[in-house]
């Protein structure tokens, strides 16, 4: 009740201010505009996908054998996208809260502060609507793509897939639109659950099940941090609602700006660190990134939507959403910066040495997420969010192109087994979409990825003490360009050649495990020599008798993608190209204009002192603004990062395209032995999984064995002891029931005699006393 009336009051106040105009902050420097009451139909954004999810579940219950679930999903998601667009125009830069229903309200007293409120309300501002636009938009396109990609599973897993897919969009919408940390956490766990369900979609495949469990468990570690952060937030601020939280955090941010860091209590500084740990888990940052590459066991549309474009950016969203809290601490953002930079570099080096193209894309996602975190940490939320946006489009394009290849070549993902796909009949759109994605990821000038990456790089050099981050990211940019075009030159260019995978339908079958192992532990020399050069030539038919043991592949025809996959790829590729245009919209780019009206930028953008305040702990020169060898980093990066990217592409061109006549071998094979153990270690993913296995998994297993023995001996022993007691008593009393009539009679007689004796003695005693 009270909240609703507040909303109405706020709506009036907002109307008076002029909705969300950044200039309104001029008179009151850091005042946040009060959110108004939003229209009810914002609730359709999460609830349409939920309805679609339920409908798909019903399809499963009624054993629908058609593509109906896909069309339901596409329609619902497209409608949700439409609502998001409508909300974007309705909002016009303002902030609104739509109250759906009262959800959690604990009251332990009549005082105003003695209440814990978390409503099912949707906080719509430019930040959350921006997220909703690309989440629902991409989900629509990818659902359309999946309608074809998953067509082999119609009647079996098709309904299950789309039910989980829609549930994911519902959870993601709750995460993004939630007006409090609890609803955000609900969405956070919901996307984690859907991720688990979809990674383990091929549940007959042991590696998929293991990957699903790994993703779920590693995410729990991060979620613990997030949960603790939420607890502490409530303990200190007494609320979990963003509207109140931002207002309460503002004085602390002001204290940081004015150099009074001592005035900020430790608990307030700890909250953003804990929230960041949650973000590291969900967004696959070091040291919790290990689940994301394994998550590629799921169907490719899932990898594209959840594990590249949307869910993994939830960590970036969390930090951007709670930016006012991060600005009230001088340890949280540097932590985020270093974790992001280490992750970016580490994942890029691993990605360089992998052979599974989907895994390369997965490591690239981890690496690019590191960029986004760095962007947030060097106070360019614009750069970070712009990179999220461009990355969502071009990485979805890349994944879907890889998925089309995987779909067409029976699950083949090894870049040594495919070559010249671009020139095969029917693969032109896939190849071109892949090229667009690669150009973006490599940061080739005038692509969207180039602009968004440069923003982050330049701001890193501008920020005092953060120049090392800039150098790491610059190096990573070169590595990224190399491994991206390594895939493109190997798989899409060069002589036409292919070896189909073992997988008939992308569905779990007995030989799938063998296939994935082969890819994982790929060794250039371990492949069977007899399998060489299948399908070489123009007919592009992989018929050869040497393939006997892969029965069913004797007459393998790669099937080029149909209209849904091609159409979606074309749309996404064009969107990736057009996204570059956003950089030129408005004064400093469209995203900058968007964020200016949200809390992700408002507080520190009011004056420049925040950057200096947070990052001058060591330099001691608050006004210092970093330069790139005396040049303005923003201008210098246009050229430097372009050159670095082109060098990376050039190296990839030389090592993987130049003089390459077959799929298996390229000039890189001459280089690898000279690198010694480095190449092997990078291919083994720096053995981080093995390290975790040794340091965490094995000791936990030992401890669990100890507890198992304790349980068997002590706990079970106690329980059994209590179970034994009645039995012991029973066996003690059992002889009295001997079944002999005379015995019973004697006992009765003895009993009566005893009673009589007692009575007699009592009578005698009574007689004596009287």
């Amino acid at each position: 009740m009270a909240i609703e009336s507040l909303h109405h009051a706020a709506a009036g106040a907002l109307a008076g201010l002029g909705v969300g105009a950044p200039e309104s902050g001029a008179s009151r420097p850091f005042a946040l505009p009060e959110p108004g009451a939003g229209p009810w139909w914002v609730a359709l954004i999460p609830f349409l996908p939920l309805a679609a999810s339920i409908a798909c579940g019903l399809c499963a219950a009624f054993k629908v054998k058609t593509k109906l679930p896909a069309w339901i999903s596409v329609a619902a998601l497209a409608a949700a996208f439409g609502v998001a667009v409508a909300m974007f125009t309705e909002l016009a830069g303002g902030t609104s809260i739509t109250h759906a229903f009262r959800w959690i309200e604990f009251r332990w007293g009549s005082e105003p502060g003695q209440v814990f409120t978390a409503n099912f309300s949707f906080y719509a501002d430019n930040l959350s609507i921006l997220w909703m636009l690309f989440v629902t938009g991409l989900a629509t396109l990818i659902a359309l793509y999946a309608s074809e990609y998953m067509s082999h599973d119609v009647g079996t897993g098709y309904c299950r897939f789309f039910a989980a897919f829609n549930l994911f969009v519902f959870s993601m919408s709750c995460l993004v639109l939630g007006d409090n940390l609890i609803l955000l956490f609900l969405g956070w766990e919901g996307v984690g659950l859907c991720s688990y369900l979809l990674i383990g979609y091929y549940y007959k495949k042991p590696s998929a099940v293991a990957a699903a469990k790994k993703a779920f468990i590693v995410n729990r570690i991060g979620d613990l941090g997030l949960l603790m952060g939420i607890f502490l937030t409530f303990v200190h601020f007494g609320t979990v609602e963003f509207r109140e939280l931002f207002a309460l955090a503002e004085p602390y941010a002001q204290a940081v700006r004015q150099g009074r860091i001592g005035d900020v209590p430790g608990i307030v500084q700890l909250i953003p660190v804990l929230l960041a740990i949650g973000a590291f888990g969900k967004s696959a940052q070091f040291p919790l990134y290990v689940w994301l590459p394994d998550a590629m066991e799921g169907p490719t549309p899932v990898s594209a939507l959840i594990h590249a474009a949307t869910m993994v950016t939830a960590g970036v969203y969390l930090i951007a959403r709670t930016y006012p809290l991060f600005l009230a601490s001088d340890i949280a953002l540097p932590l985020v910066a270093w974790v992001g930079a280490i992750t970016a570099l580490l994942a890029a080096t691993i990605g360089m040495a992998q052979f599974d193209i989907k895994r390369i894309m997965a490591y690239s996602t981890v690496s690019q997420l590191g960029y986004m975190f760095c962007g947030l940490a060097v106070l360019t939320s614009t750069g970070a969010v712009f990179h999220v946006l461009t990355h969502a489009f071009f990485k979805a394009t890349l994944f879907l192109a890889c998925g089309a290849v995987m779909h067409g070549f029976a699950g083949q993902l090894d870049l040594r087994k495919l070559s010249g796909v671009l020139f095969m009949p029917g693969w032109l759109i896939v190849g071109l979409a892949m090229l667009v994605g690669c150009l973006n990821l490599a940061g080739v000038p005038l692509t969207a990825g180039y602009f968004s990456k440069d923003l982050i790089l330049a701001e890193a050099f501008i920020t005092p003490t953060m120049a090392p981050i800039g150098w790491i990211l610059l190096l990573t940019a070169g590595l990224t360009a190399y491994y991206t075009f390594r895939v493109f030159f190997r798989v899409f260019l060069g002589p036409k050649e292919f070896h189909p995978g073992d997988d008939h339908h992308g569905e779990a079958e007995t030989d799938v495990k063998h296939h994935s192992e082969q890819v994982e532990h790929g060794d250039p020399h371990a492949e069977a020599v007899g399998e060489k050069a299948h399908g070489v030539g123009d007919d592009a038919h992989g018929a050869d008798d040497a393939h006997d043991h892969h029965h069913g592949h004797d007459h393998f025809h790669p099937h080029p993608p149909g209209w849904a996959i091609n159409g979606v790829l074309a749309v996404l590729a064009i969107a990736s190209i057009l996204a570059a245009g956003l950089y030129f919209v408005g004064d400093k780019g469209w995203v900058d204009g968007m964020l200016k009206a949200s809390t992700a930028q408002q507080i520190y953008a009011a004056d420049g002192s925040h950057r200096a305040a947070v990052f001058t702990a060591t330099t001691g020169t608050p006004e210092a603004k970093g330069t790139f060898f005396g040049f303005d980093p923003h201008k210098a990066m246009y050229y430097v990062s372009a050159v670095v990217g082109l060098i990376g592409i050039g190296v990839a061109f030389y090592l993987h395209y130049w003089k390459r006549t077959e799929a298996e071998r390229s000039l890189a094979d001459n280089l690898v032995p000279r690198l010694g153990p480095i190449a092997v270690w990078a291919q083994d993913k720096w053995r981080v999984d093995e390290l975790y296995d040794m340091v965490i998994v094995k000791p936990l297993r030992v401890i669990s064995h100890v507890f198992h023995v304790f349980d068997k001996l002590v706990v079970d022993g106690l329980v059994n002891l209590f179970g034994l007691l009645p039995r012991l008593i029973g066996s003690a009393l059992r002889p009295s029931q001997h079944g002999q009539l005379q015995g019973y009679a004697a006992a009765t007689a003895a009993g009566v005699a005893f009673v009589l004796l007692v009575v007699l003695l009592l009578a005698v005693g009574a007689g004596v006393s009287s």
Partner: protein
Amino acid sequence: MMETTLLAAQTVPGVAAGAGMDLVAPMAGVTLAHYLFVSAAMFALGLVGFLVRRNLIVMFLCTELMFQAAGIAMIAFARYHLEMSGQTFVIFVLTVAAAEAALALALVVLLFRMRDSLSSEAWQELKG
């Protein structure tokens, strides 16, 4: 209480109890104690018989013996106190005993048919 009654019965002869004693004149000198002694002896015989014999019919007869011992005691007390209700009660007991005897014997016959034995040891299935 019991002691005093017994003493009274011994010190004060039957005549003192009034005209009722004249009806049993030939048995003058037989006091309540004699009746009670017979009753107790019969009860003890019945009890011992019940405990030591295994034959179901004999055991049943022994219960009858204990029954009648109680009856005798009751009649003796009734006569001593010149109170007719005790005798009436015994008549009822006899009636019930007759019915019970019929039932019990029928049971014994059935039990015999099932085991071809009259021994009570043939029926020990309920032992623990």
